[in-house]
């Protein structure tokens, strides 16, 4: 069998997940001794091809169309290359952009798609592992098809590092159609007065705080410790803290010395933003919460009991919430 992996880049940078795809794709191809081909669409394709030339890659196809991601260009190019190469597996990142074109490609090609794959066993067919119910369970699925597509979760496979000797071939895709979707630009969000990526100590609050009126309790703790306040996504979604406080995949990636996660369950999108902290401390009532998988220290207790005690330990006064 052969594997076709689709690289991802944004604003001139190849994204790390592209090199992770090579590791995952090589493993998949190895199961039956087949080829791993990689395609990169748009941007400085030759420079990207250089970076994608890692051990285990057979051919890198470059599609020199456009600068940035456009799902119609990607869908057309990948569909056409797929028709030519007839790979068993189409592999792409389970990223925001991956999920903006891969379902359409799979639909056009009539191949089954499994998203957000965290592991797989390949042999005759493929058995994939994914999480469900917010990570509380893992499930495996057997895919009984000659061709299939998977999107793989970022940061689950190591980046391919060793240099390769892949062939580079331009692929002339016909993407001249009418683009009904136009990308006009990008904007960085979440700027402002505080840069949580600079903090040595972060006190981070999650859904367990229950109400906006309870936020001052965590603010007081952060003040008492001389720490910076951050949060998980639901707090920002609810408008209780500004976007520049959000840690996670769509927020900021932080690497403080100490990260105190309070009432945060530890969804994968959050963990992606803080697993690089030196010391992680969790305060959460649910002992099976995924945050405890990566925490170094934990207190399995009600934050409304622990946090006031902690504030008082340092001579502060807990606000009534």
């Amino acid at each position, binding site marked *: 069998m052969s594997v076709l992996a689709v690289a991802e880049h944004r604003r001139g940078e190849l994204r790390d997940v592209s090199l992770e795809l090579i590791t995952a794709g090589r493993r998949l191809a190895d199961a039956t001794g087949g080829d791993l081909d990689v395609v990169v669409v748009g941007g400085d394709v030759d420079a990207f091809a250089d970076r994608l030339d890692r051990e285990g890659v057979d051919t890198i196809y470059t599609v020199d169309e456009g600068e940035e991601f456009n799902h119609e260009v990607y869908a057309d190019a990948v569909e056409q290359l797929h028709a030519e190469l007839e790979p068993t597996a189409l592999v792409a990142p389970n990223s925001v952009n991956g999920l903006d074109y891969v*379902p359409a490609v799979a639909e056009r090609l009539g191949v089954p798609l499994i998203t957000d794959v965290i592991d797989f066993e390949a042999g005759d067919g493929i058995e994939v592992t994914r999480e469900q119910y917010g990570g509380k369970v893992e*499930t495996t699925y057997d895919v009984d098809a000659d061709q299939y597509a998977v999107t793989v979760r970022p940061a689950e496979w190591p980046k391919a590092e060793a240099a390769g000797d892949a062939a580079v071939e331009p692929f002339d895709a016909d993407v001249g159609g009418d683009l009904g979707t136009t*990308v006009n630009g990008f904007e960085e969000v979440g700027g402002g007065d505080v840069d949580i990526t600079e903090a040595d100590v972060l006190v981070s609050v999650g859904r367990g705080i229950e109400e906006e009126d309870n936020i001052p309790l965590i603010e007081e703790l952060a003040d008492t410790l001389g720490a910076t306040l951050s949060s998980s996504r639901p707090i920002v979604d609810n408008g209780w803290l500004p976007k520049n406080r959000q840690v996670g995949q769509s927020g900021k990636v932080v690497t403080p010395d100490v990260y105190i996660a309070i009432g945060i369950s530890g969804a994968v999108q959050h963990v992606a933003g803080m697993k690089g902290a030196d010391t992680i401390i969790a305060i959460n009532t649910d002992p099976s919460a995924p945050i405890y998988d990566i925490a170094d220290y934990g207190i399995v207790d009600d934050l409304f009991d622990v946090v006031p005690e902690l504030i008082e330990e*340092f001579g502060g006064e807990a606000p009534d919430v």
Partner: protein
Amino acid sequence: MKILVTVKEVAEVDDEFSISGLDIDESSLEYDLNEWDDYAVEEAVQLSEADGHDDVEVVTVTVGPERAEETVRMALAKGADRAVRVWDDALEEAQFLDLDAKAELLAAVAEEEEPDLVLSGVQAADDANGATGVALAERLGVEWAAVVNSLELDADAGVASVRRELEGGVEELTDVELPAVLTIQTGINEPRYASLRGIRQAQRKPLEVYDLEDVGLDESVVDSPVERTDMYEPESEGDATVWEGSSEDTAEELADFLRDKGVVDA
């Protein structure tokens, strides 16, 4: 103009739960409106309430059993005008509905309704496929945008100006020609609570129920090359030191730790 909102009733799992066979035991599940769909419903209702949008009809479509009507009524109570629910014995008996089946079922209803805009949650909280909306768009042959956290609609020009929430605090500004499917991210708005009046009104709003034949499909829709083979609780990879005792004791342990680390001087 007509907006179709895909609404899913999702299962939430209790902290303590058991697995029976290839699924979570029914006794460990509670059902609720999918969080992402709640934002999608709100976005549609806000569009229908906006000045100059008096003629906007909001229709919800759900694939689910009778139990899901509670969730559907909640969407109606929040301001949707009417609802469609598709279910069938063949769907009930399927191990699960794969992406293709979901897209095909929703497309069958969308083709009947001919909406100008379809709003769909980015993902369902239980399956977390994150792919149904885009697959639906492709099947309908319309435009789409995934992971939208801001939407401005120019109905006369037939264009939706959206922001797509990319990773790392970057947003992509994109114009999408209508008709289109947009997958809606949490945080795009503030979903309202249903008012008592809304809940009363919802009881009188139309909720049509279709089986496979009604939407022009047959049992083959559930055929899938994908089969679930196992479900298990992942082994905890954690080796966290857990401080035990009263809140006072554990807070003291943590305080000592932070002092030792030099985090605080006091």
